[in-house]
């Protein structure tokens, strides 16, 4: 499932994050890459442990916490701390790669990367190129979103970031271990949830309708069947 989640951060929050990141101590992106993807990676990235990273992580996590659609789609069990990268100038691209299956946290905890997320912090008109290209079973997708918007896609997909030929592309990226491991099942649940939402808001049916209650029950029972808590 590839999903565009709008306005995870407000424009105001984007501006705050950008202000922090403008002052931040950027470093070579290869510090977090595995040996294979290090060959492909050419960008700059913020160290995981600096003040700026933590401040922006807070902003992002708050944004996600209040975003209902995001939760419904991701059903997160663990969210790895968001990281930040910057493409532009000499360091402007990240070739085809697959994310490592597991993210190791500094405290020894691990996050299985079921879902990859990229949150855009630069507006599309601020740079040329820089599209996130995701290959999934339906082919290749080209993603370039408004600042504050997020794309979530299966961690299993091969993806790359096209060269930024003008301006700078700043984004945050992170991974989610979902309570529902299978992308397919998560997608079904999400679809069902969305349709149910429509039924519930439909004035002729409403929330008390027996079918709505029945389908809600089915939603929960599927969740129970597939859940890994």
């Amino acid at each position, binding site marked *: 499932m590839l999903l565009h989640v709008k306005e995870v951060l407000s424009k105001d929050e984007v501006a705050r994050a950008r202000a*922090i990141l403008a*002052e*931040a*101590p950027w*470093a070579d992106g290869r510090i977090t890459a595995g040996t294979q993807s290090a060959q492909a990676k050419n960008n700059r990235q913020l*160290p995981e*442990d*600096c*003040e*700026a990273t*933590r*401040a922006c992580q*807070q902003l992002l*996590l*708050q944004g996600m*916490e*209040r975003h*209902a*659609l*995001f*939760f*419904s*789609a991701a*059903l*997160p*069990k*663990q*969210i*790895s*701390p*968001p990281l930040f990268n910057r493409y532009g100038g000499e360091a402007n691209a990240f070739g085809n790669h697959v994310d490592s299956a*597991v993210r*190791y*946290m*500094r*405290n*020894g*905890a*691990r*996050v299985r990367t079921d879902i990859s997320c990229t949150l855009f912090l630069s507006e599309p008109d601020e740079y040329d190129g820089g599209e996130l290209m995701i290959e999934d079973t339906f082919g290749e997708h080209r993603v370039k979103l408004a600042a504050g918007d997020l794309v979530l896609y299966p961690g299993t997909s091969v993806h790359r970031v096209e060269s930024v030929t003008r301006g700078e592309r700043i984004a945050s990226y992170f991974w989610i271990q979902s*309570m529902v491991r299978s992308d397919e099942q998560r997608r079904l649940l*999400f679809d069902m*949830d*969305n349709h*149910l*939402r429509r039924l*519930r*808001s439909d004035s002729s049916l409403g*929330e*008390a309708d*027996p079918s709505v*209650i*029945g389908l*809600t*029950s089915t*939603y*929960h029972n599927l*969740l129970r069947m597939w*859940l890994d*808590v």
Partner: protein
Amino acid sequence: MAKTAEPTFGRTPAFTHPEQALTPLGAMMLAASVTGWAMPATAQTLPAVTVTEQADVQGKDALLTKKTNIGKGTQDIRDIPQSITVITEKLIDDIKLDTLKDALHYTAGITFAATENGTDQDIRLRGFPIATTGDLMIDGMRDPSQYDRDTFNTERIEVMKGSASMLFGRGSTGGVVNQVAKKPMLLDQSDVTVSAGTMGYLRTTVDVNKRLTETTALRLNAMYNKADNDGASIDKNGIAPSYSWGLGTPDEFTLGAFYLNNNNVPPSGIGYVGGKLAPVKAGAFYGTDSDYADGNATYVHGNWKHLFGDGSELRTQFRSGVFERQTWITQARIGTTNGVATTAANFGDNTILTRVGLAPRKDRFKSTYVQSDYSKSLELGGMRHELLAGIDAAHEQALRFGGYGTVGTNYAKGNTTVGNPDDGTRLNVSPTYRGTEGYKSDALGLYLQDLVQVAPMWKVLGGVRYDKFDGNYEQYTYANANSTVRTATASNSFDFSPWSYRAGLLFQPSTTQSYHLSYGTSFTTAADTYRFTNAQNANTPPEKSRNIELGAKLDWLDGNLSTRGAIFRSEKFNERTTDADFGNIAYTLSGKRHSTGVELDVVGRITPQWEVYGSFTWIPDAKIDAAGSAATAQATVGQRVGLTPKRSGALWVSYQANAKFRVALGGHGSSENFALAGTSGAISPNARAPGFMVFDAMAEYKFTPDLYAQLNVSNLGDKAYGDALYPGFAVLGAKRQVLATIGMRF
């Protein structure tokens, strides 16, 4: 059908707009568990989503931590109904808190007793001893011997205030100090620091963490430290390797070793003048080059954490080691000034100081500890229970030696004058030792604690512990003062089987507020403390204490800032109101005392630029309620308890000027303080040390995120203050020092 699903639909009053009620189902459950959004109590909720970021911040990077291991398992600080102050590695690195003692200076309510046996770690919290023999922990397990603890292998220091024998067994009247050791992590990270400074200071630390495979890692910490300190020199080194396997799997193992070696010349004590601290310069050393406080600590440790399929956890650890120490320290007594008695008025550079070597001491302590702690969460009777149960066993053995022959006790080391500190005197004699006392004990403890969520906002804590303690003491006598021929051995023994309790009520109306009311008891088998070896003091019952506390832990600014406050009353029965030195004439365990006060802590980030750590204690009332058995050696009923200043505190504020530059200023201090109470034997029982404030400052420049330079100035005002007090003398704090540090992470 399907009525089960209905509660999820329950519209809460918070959802006034129809579209808000139409939150997706998955989101309603999950988001509620993350943010605490209003939800019907009956809603089906999934377990809380773990936003890993919060647990992920290393102590190296922040002053604020919300988790602690001091309650044996890992707990949220907000779930512990007692005052807790945590000193993270960042504060240690920022202020250059090289030793445990330095670090504890930054915890309010802590004072130090100068002692005749030269340990620099006779610590008081709320006025009660945090005995090295029972209340210092490493990873929640006793670390009881006397040695000069260094922080090179310490990730953070947790101070839990109030009685806690229910968790730790004997000790803990004032509280417990837990040193959390650095452990292997699944990442590659190395930190190297080199500091150089005034008074010949050189310190280098190495912290290498290497991830070897998906589940194994190795960590090595090492330290080398030297300083001349104008006479009171430091010469120490340490190494602590540890290896973990099975990390992230249900069975995590760690094996490690620790070695620390000290060859220091300790600061000298100086007598009081007219009931006040001698007005000498900060850091003035009036000892000799022959003084020493040598010691080494060597131990091995192991840890096994097993995660059961049902989510419960069993932690088993052991530690076994040998600790050796020998000291011969100088006390500078005030002599005459220009031929007449010294007073505050004529005290000056010409004042003669008669140097007396405190009795040479040497001891060897061996200890082995094993403990298992089991924690489990479960639903029982419709309520959530957090169960904690454990068993621990200890075997301890000590041999103590005293000087004999020429350098037996109180050996005169020659005179100097106030104007002539660090005069380079080197004596042509040194102590020789013979065994004076032996001590052996076995202890076993069993405990059970339950934290029950009795209602959505209320938790109740109850715990009980049973201890079995058998001790055996021997005292040796010799043919004469110059002989090593042992003529007699007097032995005593005792066994105690006390029960300890802990109860608490927690009210947590939101994720940012936690209020507690708690009650705890503790006991101390005083006979395991230094020199409590004769019938008079060994055969009296253990000290008992109880502690009542009402407190609040509040989070602000999205959890970036925490404040903690508590009002407490601690009471101790069978109190050792007299100094241990009078143990031969008085039943030392016979008094009663109490202290009542308020503690406040604030820690965290106010804005992304400003970070703060503050700790303050106010004890308006600390009195002796009943006194000892010997009129000549007892404290006075109604008197304020020694080493319990009314106010004490510490503050550290840092400002990140830009991405590369950070400055910080802080300090610690206390109001007027005085030593242990006692009416005879000691030279100046009423001597006072005035209130003081010592300031420290730091500036840090990061060339890159991984390379920084740091400049520290400690004791900015070069203040001379009474750091550790004894009735007969005081040990003043260190003088101003400037340190430059280069640190690298790679």
